[in-house]
């Protein structure tokens, strides 16, 4: 039995991969616990019986590394993602993602993003907004949400005039328009690292390998993740 702790934003992909894996591998059963990366990291810190940790940001992997809970050799980058600017469907706002424009002038209403203080997608978004020189003006309009799903939701429902979410989220939602992709260098790279934990069972290696297999990659791509 392998227990995978995975960031909640990967849940649909990971669930599917596990299903496939469990069907193909008879003797090993994989189970997943989904929650925010911070929760998972703290649980692992508190002795959670996890074998593999998939974090939505390197920070929490670093945290565990500092606690010497992961096997450093096994840590690697599993997925990458991008952040994009979205609006509710059919708003037709045109904006180029450069310093010349001012986002605040273009959108009439709130801008939703994950809480810029702690939610990874919010932190990336804030970095990008600062890089683009938009942050100062847009700040009063920013609504911090609990996680990226909440931000997407708010935009889908038209509660926010715009939002910044992962491209994976924007990709799978039919109710929003993706109006711009933030330049890759405008924020630190969005990386989902994975690692095996020190307390892990042996069988975890097999699943870790499977995560990097072609079959898994197909699934990840299906849900909009890049695997570089």
């Amino acid at each position: 039995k392998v227990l995978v702790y995975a960031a909640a934003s990967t849940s649909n992909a990971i669930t599917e991969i596990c299903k496939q894996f469990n069907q193909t591998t008879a003797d090993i059963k994989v189970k997943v616990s989904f929650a925010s990366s911070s929760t998972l990291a703290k649980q692992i810190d508190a002795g959670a019986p996890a074998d593999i940790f998939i974090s939505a940001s390197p920070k929490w992997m670093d945290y565990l590394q500092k606690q010497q809970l992961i096997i450093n050799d096994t840590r690697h980058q599993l997925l990458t993602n991008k952040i994009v600017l979205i609006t509710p469907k059919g708003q037709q706002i045109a904006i180029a993602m450069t310093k010349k424009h001012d986002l605040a002038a273009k959108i009439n209403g709130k801008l939703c993003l994950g809480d810029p203080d702690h939610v990874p997608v919010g932190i990336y978004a804030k970095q990008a907004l600062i890089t683009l020189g938009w942050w100062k003006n847009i700040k009063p309009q920013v609504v911090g949400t609990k996680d990226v799903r909440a931000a997407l939701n708010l935009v889908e429902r038209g509660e926010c005039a715009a939002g910044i979410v992962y491209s994976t989220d924007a990709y799978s939602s039919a109710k929003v328009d993706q109006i711009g992709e933030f330049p890759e260098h405008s924020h630190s790279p969005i990386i989902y690292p994975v690692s095996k934990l020190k307390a892990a069972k042996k069988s975890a290696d097999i699943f870790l390998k499977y995560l990097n297999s072609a079959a898994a990659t197909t699934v990840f791509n299906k849900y909009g993740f890049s695997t570089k």
Partner: protein
Amino acid sequence: MFDLSPAEYSAMMLSLKISLWSVGIILIPGIFMGWLLARHDFYGKSLLDGVLHLPLVLPPVVTGYLLLLLLGRQGFLGKWLYQQFDITLAFSWKGAVLATALMSFPLMVRSIRLSISMIDIKLEQASRSLGASALNCFFTVTLPLAIPGIITGSILAFARSLGEFGATITFVGNIEDETRTLPLAIYTYIQVPDGDAFAQRLLVISIVIALSALLFSGLIEKRAATWLGKK
């Protein structure tokens, strides 16, 4: 001793404001609902009873989400409120009041209902025979005798409001000085590595507020008990 940073102070005051408002706005409806459920039988009572408990049963995030569906600017009611009265609840502290109020409502109603159902109906009859109208009897007999339940309900509701997180953050987000209450601020800190120290300070503030509120309510309770002749 314990110097509060402006952010901490703001979160504390916001929490207090929202919790007090929340208890304030559900008090009267809670009394009414408690009385209705304790003293009346009507068609659909079980359903009403059930619906009242939903905020307790549903995950708070879901309640917040449903509120958003209903009262967001695009929501059925929210649109109307916005167009007619220029009121926006989502993303404002008023929305937070609504969310916490909704979450604490079942606790308020249940407590009041319990205490009203334990009042001897003969006292109400005595009041009527002394010339009190049904309404007057309610205010001069039923209500005072239900005070223990009202206090209990208010404490539970206030405590629940202070601690409410899921529905609030979902419905009104986490906006500093507007909707970032203590729980939201705490949440913010524990989401980042190294935030624990700050979170702990906020926790202590929460606990101090809660304990003060309980001490205060304890005093009122004792008074009420003496007054109701239980001691």
